[in-house]
């Protein structure tokens, strides 16, 4: 007897999955793009950005945390869900201080790329203009808290891979913010180093390597040329990063 392949259906397309894969894992392996920011294939799913919210058998679920179960009927690329995603992206823009034209990450930034993908033409909602610091203390890296979207990828990378626990989230609600675990709160007083995993995972321009920020001219960067739907996450720019779907 032939073992029947397990499948789920995304927007009418049947795709296979392996036991233990989430909907996001299965979708990426099948080259179906589900917008996301806090998801990274090398880390335990977080489910906080909510961009990957899809409809699974009539219920809203985050694709990155929802296990694939045979026969699931999933809606992903619909007008309603993409409008939802646009509103969530706008919320992230107004919550922080995201000035794309002045940001060294422009063109390589996933937040900006997702904004293009969901057709965001303005931030629409009232800006919060929070007062946030910039930490240029480290010799090789600068942390600009203005651009942090609280995806916790650096927190997870530093804790789970680098075993250094350099980053954390402090505060609750709208006051939740990224902090650096050192007595001074400065990156220079940690053992953060160039090879750290946490140095490569920021999807936005919050953690940037100094002196390399303009080595690729604006206009020739990843998302300047192709949609995030096609090229995927910006982490693949970094050596040593795995491509999604394959570990």
């Amino acid at each position: 007897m032939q073992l029947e392949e397990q499948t789920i259906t995304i927007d009418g397309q049947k795709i296979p999955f392996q036991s233990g894969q989430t909907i996001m894992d299965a979708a990426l392996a099948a080259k179906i793009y589900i917008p996301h920011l806090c998801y990274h294939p090398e880390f335990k799913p977080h489910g906080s950005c909510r961009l990957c919210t899809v409809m699974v058998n009539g219920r809203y679920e985050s694709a990155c945390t929802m296990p694939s179960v045979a026969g699931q009927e999933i809606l992903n690329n619909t007008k309603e869900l993409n409008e939802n995603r646009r509103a969530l992206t706008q919320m992230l823009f107004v919550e922080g201080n995201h000035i794309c034209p002045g940001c060294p990450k422009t063109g390589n930034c996933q937040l900006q790329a997702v904004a293009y993908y969901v057709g965001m033409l303005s931030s629409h909602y009232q800006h919060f203009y929070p007062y946030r610091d910039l930490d240029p203390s480290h010799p090789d890296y600068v942390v600009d808290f203005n651009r942090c979207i609280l995806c916790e990828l650096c927190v997870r990378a530093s804790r789970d891979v680098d075993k250094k626990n350099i980053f954390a989230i402090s505060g609750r609600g709208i006051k939740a913010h990224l902090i650096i675990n050192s007595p001074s709160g400065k990156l220079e007083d940690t053992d953060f180093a160039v090879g750290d995993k946490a140095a490569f995972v920021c999807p936005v321009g919050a953690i940037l390597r100094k002196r390399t920020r303009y080595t690729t001219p604006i206009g020739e960067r990843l998302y300047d040329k192709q949609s995030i739907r096609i090229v995927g996450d910006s982490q693949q720019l970094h050596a040593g990063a795995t491509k999604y779907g394959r570990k």
Partner: protein
Amino acid sequence: MIESLEGKRGVPRNRPPFPVTQGYLNKPTVVNNVETFALAARIAVYGGDGFAALGTKQSKGTKLLSISGDCLRPGIYEFPFGVSVREVLEACNAQDTQAVQISGAAGTCLSAKEFDRKIAFEDVATGGSVMIFNRQRDLLEVVRNFAHFFVHESCGFCTPCRVGTSLLKNLVEKVYTNHGTADDLKDMSYISQVLKTASHCGLGQTASNHIADTLKKFPEIYHKRLLVEANFEPAFDLDSALEDARQITGRKDEMAYL
């Protein structure tokens, strides 16, 4: 709660796995409130028949209601499931009731037209909170209070709840201070929807109910405060933004006022 017990930040977990399979220290865990444990004990001691004879077909037994607000006899009441809101209002002697908020700030706001609805899982479900507001109350004050409450309650983990509750609070304030427009009401309605569909946990999914409910059932509390029936009024107040600079420079001349 389980995260806190484990010494972690108090943010909701991803589910599945649910606590019954992986809860405290990843062991099966029962998470229930005191009322459930008390009723389970009553059923264990006295059997299920007497319990099942009370209530409705889908909601058996009784429910403790914590009644507060505009009534002569607030307090804790026990009713069989299926009791109507009107009966509850009569029991606690509430007069001239404008609205009843069932199940707390995250619950359902009922208008007088709905007072024959039943308290039961199949109709108006509740954790037990009943707040009564009479016709002397300005319901927008209530909405404002709830909107601030949810800004405070949001843990900040997920985008829609963290940002959306603040956006809603700001919009409610804008309307309350007579700066709101019809477009702001549309935004409030849409943000409410995004919170409901995209939030990570039950708090975020219900944190906009008070706004969605009152926009639908009590539109006049918003409309009577709209600045004009115009489409747009900037949230940014240029004049007040210039005030700091006027103070610092000591300018009071005409050109300092735009």
